[in-house]
């Protein structure tokens, strides 16, 4: 029975799902032999059948074949790497077909080619190409490798200074800073980081760190590990050397003491107030304004609690309290020593008080001044917006004499040096009705300006000449009252003017501003400040000149009063000498407000200051 399979050498698992495993020569299916052997049968077979080891499963027929002895021998030989045929001799003697012996007869009978007699043309072409290349220098002989031993020689054998190094812009790179104790492998304990410092170091951006590494301590040299950033640091240095733009930075090498200006010693500039000697208590609200009588004996103060108080300067005793019924914005004592009158500004009223704190003579003369108009003609009704009226009844007993009703809230009131005129400010950005000048003896009021030039902050009369100073938000205008024209406009270079004072000589003005500056103007010199003083930390609220001594003071929200010496020379070429001499502190900060007003004693080198803590201080 020939059961040769005709499927050829194919993977037999293709037939795995079929009942047959191929086809015989006739094209009939060869069916798989029935195999019902399981693992157990296989095992038993292995144990019992002595032929088992030479039994091979034929995949093509699906039957088991027992190998014969010859076949087993063949397998063994192949496995050992020997020839399959037992009779094959692998060590037969060699037959030399092509030997070194010259044969007398040629192997072939063919005559030799012509090209074996003549030189090759292609070779000639190739050689000539090479020759040409060598001639042209395209092909170079092999370079002799120098071993580097003789590479170095005395490069600087002829050091002639004629070779200039580089142009003058050359900046040599700075050397790497040398390491400090921090970098030691075993630093002193104070150089090691504490936990907080370490945490901070880790939090910081690498660019902000003071040290680029964390100091470490190792107990012995063998424990020191490699520094992981070493290559990195070298690389950074390389980058710095060729990429980093260089610039020559001049290091300022000055002794800081040399920078401090040499000023005359404050000791030599005495007298000036140095200590707080008296405190005037009694007000319950912030004291906005104070004023000293021309004799220097009395001090008037106006407060937000709606009262005006009169104090005796030397004893700090409150002589009189006048309830005016409203927050007092400004008080001003008549500078004329022959009358005793006080102007008070509150809400939209200016009150004229006669405190009767003087000689009978003086009181009489002031009464006369007030009543001069009544005896004369009726008040002119030219200015309808301002109404003059007399005080009556209870108010009269308190000392109130006149009421000047304004159309808007009055912020400041000032007297002319002669004592007959007084001016009041009603800050309003929108109208030209901001300043009124009143004449007391004739009970007349007039508005000197017909146009609005900005928010008026404060005003002042010139002490000698008929000039009028008006400070708007950023500048000071000086008007000639006789010619009725503007003569000068001072630029203060500050954002918002708060106060202004005119030197008793009349040629200098100081002006404080809310942006902490104090500017000193020399009217003969320029319309720009001669000096800007930035002494205060907070807004300047008030400034004042002393009438006799070369002193001026500024009060600020930082609770300090700074007294400066300011000598003015008659010589036009000599600039005023300004020296700060004393910082006076005595007020307590309340609601972010410190000192609100400052004024000098008319004859003594004393300064008064009123604060937001409802007190008035006298510094002597």
């Amino acid at each position: 029975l020939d059961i040769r399979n005709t499927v050829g050498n194919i993977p037999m698992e293709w037939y795995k799902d079929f009942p047959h495993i191929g086809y015989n020569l006739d094209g009939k299916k060869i069916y798989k032999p029935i195999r019902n052997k399981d693992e157990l049968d296989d095992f038993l077979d292995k144990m019992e059948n002595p032929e088992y080891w030479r039994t091979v499963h034929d995949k093509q027929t699906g039957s088991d074949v027992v190998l014969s002895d010859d076949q087993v021998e063949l397998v063994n030989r192949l496995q050992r790497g020997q020839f399959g045929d037992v009779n094959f001799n692998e060590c037969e003697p060699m037959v030399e077909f092509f030997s070194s012996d010259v044969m007398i007869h040629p192997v072939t009978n063919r005559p030799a080619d012509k090209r074996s007699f003549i030189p090759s043309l292609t070779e000639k072409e190739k050689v000539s190409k090479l020759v040409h290349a060598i001639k042209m220098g395209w092909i170079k002989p092999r370079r002799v490798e120098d071993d580097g031993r003789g590479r170095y020689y005395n490069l600087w054998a002829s050091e002639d200074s004629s070779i200039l190094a580089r142009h003058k812009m050359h900046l040599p790179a700075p050397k790497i800073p040398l390491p400090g104790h921090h970098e030691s492998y075993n630093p002193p304990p104070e150089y090691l980081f504490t936990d907080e410092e370490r945490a901070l170091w880790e939090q910081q951006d690498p660019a902000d760190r003071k040290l680029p590494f964390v100091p470490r301590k190792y107990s012995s040299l063998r424990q020191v590990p490699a520094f992981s950033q070493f290559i990195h640091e070298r690389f950074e240095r390389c980058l710095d050397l060729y990429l980093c733009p260089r610039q020559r930075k001049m290091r300022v090498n000055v002794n800081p003491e040399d920078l401090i200006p040499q000023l005359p010693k404050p000791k030599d500039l005495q007298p000036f107030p140095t200590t707080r000697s008296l405190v005037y208590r009694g007000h319950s609200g912030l004291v906005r304004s104070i004023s000293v009588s021309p004799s220097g004996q009395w001090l008037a103060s106006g407060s937000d609690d709606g009262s005006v108080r009169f104090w005796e300067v030397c004893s700090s005793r409150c002589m009189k309290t006048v309830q005016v019924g409203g927050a007092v914005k400004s008080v001003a004592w008549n500078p004329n020593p022959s009358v005793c009158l006080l102007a008070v500004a509150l809400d939209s009223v200016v009150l004229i008080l006669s405190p009767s704190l003087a000689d009978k003579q003086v009181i009489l003369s002031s009464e006369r001044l007030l009543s001069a108009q009544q005896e004369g003609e009726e008040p002119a009704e030219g200015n309808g917006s301002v109404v003059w009226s007399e005080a009556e009844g209870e108010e009269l007993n308190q000392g109130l004499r006149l009421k000047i009703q304004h159309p808007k809230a009055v912020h400041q009131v000032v007297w002319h040096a002669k004592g007959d005129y007084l001016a009041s400010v009603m800050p309003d950005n929108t109208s030209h009705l901001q300043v009124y000048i009143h004449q007391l003896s004739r009970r007349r009021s007039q508005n000197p300006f017909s146009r609005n030039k900005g928010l008026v902050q404060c005003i002042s009369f010139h002490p000698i000449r008929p000039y009028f100073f008006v400070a708007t938000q950023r500048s000071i205008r000086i008007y000639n009252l006789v010619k009725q024209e503007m003569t000068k406009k001072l630029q203060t270079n500050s954002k918002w003017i708060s106060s202004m004072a005119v030197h008793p000589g009349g040629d200098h003005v100081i002006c404080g501003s809310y942006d902490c500056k104090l500017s000193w103007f020399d009217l003969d010199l320029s319309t720009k400040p001669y000096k800007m003083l930035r002494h205060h930390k907070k807004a300047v609220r008030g400034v004042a000149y002393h009438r006799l001594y070369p002193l001026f003071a500024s009060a600020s929200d930082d609770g300090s009063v700074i007294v400066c010496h300011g000598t003015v020379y008659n010589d036009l070429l000599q600039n005023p000498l300004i020296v700060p001499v004393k910082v006076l502190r005595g007020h307590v900060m309340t609601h972010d407000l410190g000192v609100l007003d400052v004024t000098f004693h008319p004859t003594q080198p004393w300064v008064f200051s009123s604060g937001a803590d409802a007190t008035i201080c006298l510094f002597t």
Partner: protein
Amino acid sequence: MGGLQKKKFERGSATNYITRNRARKKLQLSLPDFRRLCILKGIYPHEPKHKKKVNKGSTAPRTFYLLKDIRFLLHEPIVGKFREYKIFVRKLKKAYGKTEWSAVERLRENKPTYKLDHIIKERYPTFIDALRDIDDALCMCFLFSTFARTGKCHVQTIQLCRRLTVEWMNYVIASRSLRKVFLSIKGIYYQAEVMGQLITWVVPYQFSHDHPVDVDYRVMATFTELYTTLLGFVSFRLYSSLNLVYPPKLDSNGESEPKEESEDDYAMNSESYLEKLSALSASLARVVSSADEEEAQLDQFPSEGEDMEKMEAREKELKQQEAQKKLFEGLKFYLNREVPRESLAFVIRCFGGQVSWDKSVCIGSTYDVTDETITHQIIDRPSVGKQYINRYYIQPQWLYDCVNAKILLPVEDYFLGVTLPPHLSPFVEEKEGDYVPPEKLKMMALQRGEKPGNEQEEDEEEEEEEGEQEEEQEEDDNGDEEDDEEEVAEEKNLKKMEEQRSQGKSLHVKVTPGKLKVENKARLEQEEKAEEKRLAIMMMKKKEKYLYDKIMFGKKRKVREANKLAAKRKAHDDSEKAKKKKARK
């Protein structure tokens, strides 16, 4: 009237500078080539004074080179070499593409190379200029010589760097010019004084590097190329200045001849020469064999007054230096295998000591452990098995500290297993007002020749003094506040009284004996002066004030830092003391 209108940016600083891109275009170079050229020629960007003017009104961040620098580059022969190299690479690629191996071989044989000699001469017209700039070169070469010979850069470069660094170290040994050594956490800093120039370099510890990925090794390699050339020429010149043979040869008639037989097992013939040289144990051959060196005697010049003092100071310094050079002379060291051999051998030989190590550690050992004449054995392990009785067993830090202190320090602090005293940086020179660690004070006392017995007390006293000073300062600061406080208190009293008055209570009238207020005159004067100063500061101009504030801020910060360090030290010492006390109990 008339005349052409002046155009902006056609004169002045705008014409003196050129941006990088424009410079590159002008030179017709690719960016890497431009970079290399800048590195080799030492061209760097300049920061113009008015950047906006130079930048033609724009504020874009740009780097500017000086136009003169770029013009100077135009005539550089190396630029031509760069182009040749570019062509070479192109040809090679082509040959590879066509698989013409003979052409590849031929091209490779004729690979274009360039020399940097003329650039070195141009950048450093005098030898001193070159010496001044050699710090970076040394650092770089020492780093490259520690690289593994795989990847990253050419093996030849590494070998060359190693050779040059060994030559440098040998020169420093021969000239005895090492001055300071510092073991930092980064590596070992050395400072040598060569021809009057202080040269500092840092050597990393002997570990394999883990190469960072964000480092451009091409840039480093270009720098190394320049630096090796520079270092080679400098070494040649230095060797010839000492009458030494260059390239260095070992002195053949010296008594410290390494044994012949061990050479063969150690290294190949070609390498053993460099290895022997790098062992640093043998002296070098001289051109003119003159054993006795002429000591440069400082001549006496007739001088007066200040010059005299200066001269004396100089003489003293010279003497000290001479003494330092012979610091380890007559001492015989033996290095255990766990200490850094090269660094220690270098330091010891620089100061005239004799040194040896175990035969298996390195070539060039001259004597054995068993040698009875050994005076110091450097050891860095907690304990040792067999101890010889006639030698000190000390930790390596002793050597370095001795070098920095310029005297032989007492060995007790550095014995085997002892907690080492802190290692201080010799590069820090404390000015007045700076913080000085107590160890430094101790060392300075030793240098002055004082006995180390009573120094602790001194330290304490000094510390106390410092404390007092601080307190005083604080008091000064508080002075004004106190006054204010007094006033406040007074006011309070007044207020109380007033309140009582207003309530209608009768006051407790009582007369108490007044206390005499003692006025401290000195203090008053001081206060007055302080106030005067404060007032004067108020009158400073804005610009000067700014400068003054800046200076004072810096000064204050310095003081603060010094105080902080002192406080930290004090806290540490206190805690140590407390621990000791506890331990005693």
